[in-house]
């Protein structure tokens, strides 16, 4: 695959949260529309990309998926810089992953751009019978800290698409209103070749990333 694909913007995302909450599975569900229960462990940082359409504009999402283990924090911190969107993920069946949100958020606030859109995600909501964190608690935490909130299931794909697209449309609005400077790379947004070329005829998610883009 190559970048004969046209798009208006490239937006950088980062996915953070405790180990084993399903960060890589969310990414895989979003980019490949599949769920892999026996997923390889993420060491360091992994990468995925996909196109979405917001307001008639083709937007390419570049998503960095990080290792969740505590020891990797000092490494993954450098990815906050230059991310316009962050998905902060916890596991609704594991209370401790919810309790750790504050430290994750502190990290994000400290190292990311102040305007970075953060989406709080309570993942694994297909496991209702094992639920340890109520939806109201997640919502309350998000409201208190000014985050968007959704419960998702990387397994059934519930809300996965919406979580990424909702974040993208918020970032898009920030671009339109001038909050994000598209000429400043540290804001995590780049202008694509199609910019100001009008709308696109491609439907949402028409293309998956996964090919070499540098030919």
């Amino acid at each position: 695959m190559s970048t004969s694909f046209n798009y208006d913007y490239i937006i950088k995302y980062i996915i953070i949260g405790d180990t084993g909450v399903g960060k890589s599975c969310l990414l895989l569900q979003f980019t490949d529309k599949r769920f892999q229960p026996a997923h390889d462990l993420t060491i360091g940082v992994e990468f995925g990309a996909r196109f979405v359409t917001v307001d008639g504009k083709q937007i390419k999402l570049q998503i960095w998926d990080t290792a969740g283990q505590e020891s990797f924090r000092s490494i993954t911190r450098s990815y906050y810089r230059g991310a316009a969107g962050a998905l902060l993920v916890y596991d609704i069946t594991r209370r401790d992953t919810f309790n750790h949100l504050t430290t994750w958020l502190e990290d994000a606030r400290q190292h990311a751009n102040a305007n970075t859109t953060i989406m709080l995600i309570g993942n694994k909501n297909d496991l209702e019978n094992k639920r340890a964190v109520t939806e109201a608690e997640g919502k309350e935490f998000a409201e208190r800290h000014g985050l968007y909130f959704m419960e998702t299931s990387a397994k059934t794909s519930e809300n996965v698409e919406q979580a990424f697209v909702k974040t993208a449309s918020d970032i898009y609005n920030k671009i339109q209103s001038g909050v994000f400077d598209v000429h400043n790379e540290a804001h995590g947004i780049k202008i694509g070749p199609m910019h100001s070329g009008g709308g696109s005829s491609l439907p949402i998610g028409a293309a998956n990333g996964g090919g070499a883009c540098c030919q």
Partner: protein
Amino acid sequence: MALSGATYFRSGDDSYRPNLKTWAERMSPVIGEIEKDVVRSMPGHPAYKSAIGLGALRRVLYSYAWRNPSIGYAQSMNIIASVLLLHLKEEDAFWLLATVCEQLLPDYYSKTLLGVQVDQRVFAHLVSISLPLVAAHFQDIDLDQATITIPWFLCLYQSAFPASVSTRVLDCFFYEGPRFLFMLGLAILKSCQGQLLKCTNDEGIVWTMQAFFKRFQEVSPTSEDDGGGNNNNNGNDNDATACADEDKAE
């Protein structure tokens, strides 16, 4: 075991089994982390689809966490242990893991991963000397090289290459010592140099490197012999060795 020094490191220490017994009676937050990772260490390999393989991996990691609480368990030790267990008896795999974590790569798997981070700086410096174009290009597109290379070093390239190549990498690592990680890294970047320089963003670099490792999957021979010497299996390997030699000369 002999090349790595693990045989001498162990030298009559029979604490593995008794330690495991004691360990079984204790609880620690590390257990939860290990438990989650045991099933995603090498999920595609038949050995780790059975309780026997998973049990052995779990015991080696528990036992190591018990032996050395200052390290406990760092993700990527599971990858190394799972590979070692395919080639060695459980107790030997444990000692070789201990040798890697304490003798060969001290501080790599510590709570802050300090050792591997220092080595990334050293490696970046080596790249700037040996492959200045690549180093400058990474800088131009604002890519932290460690993004690509930290998993190489932490996992001893085991999750990057397919099994037939990664086993040889292990052999060379035990023979040459830690410097082999640097040599191989430089060789890989050198063989990809042309494509890397064409990439206009970090995403391109990531896909290029993935494509590079994938190539080995296609050409890797099925033979399992790893007892031998220097018979190179394919052209890329030759290329890598040659490049590594050049780097040594630098």
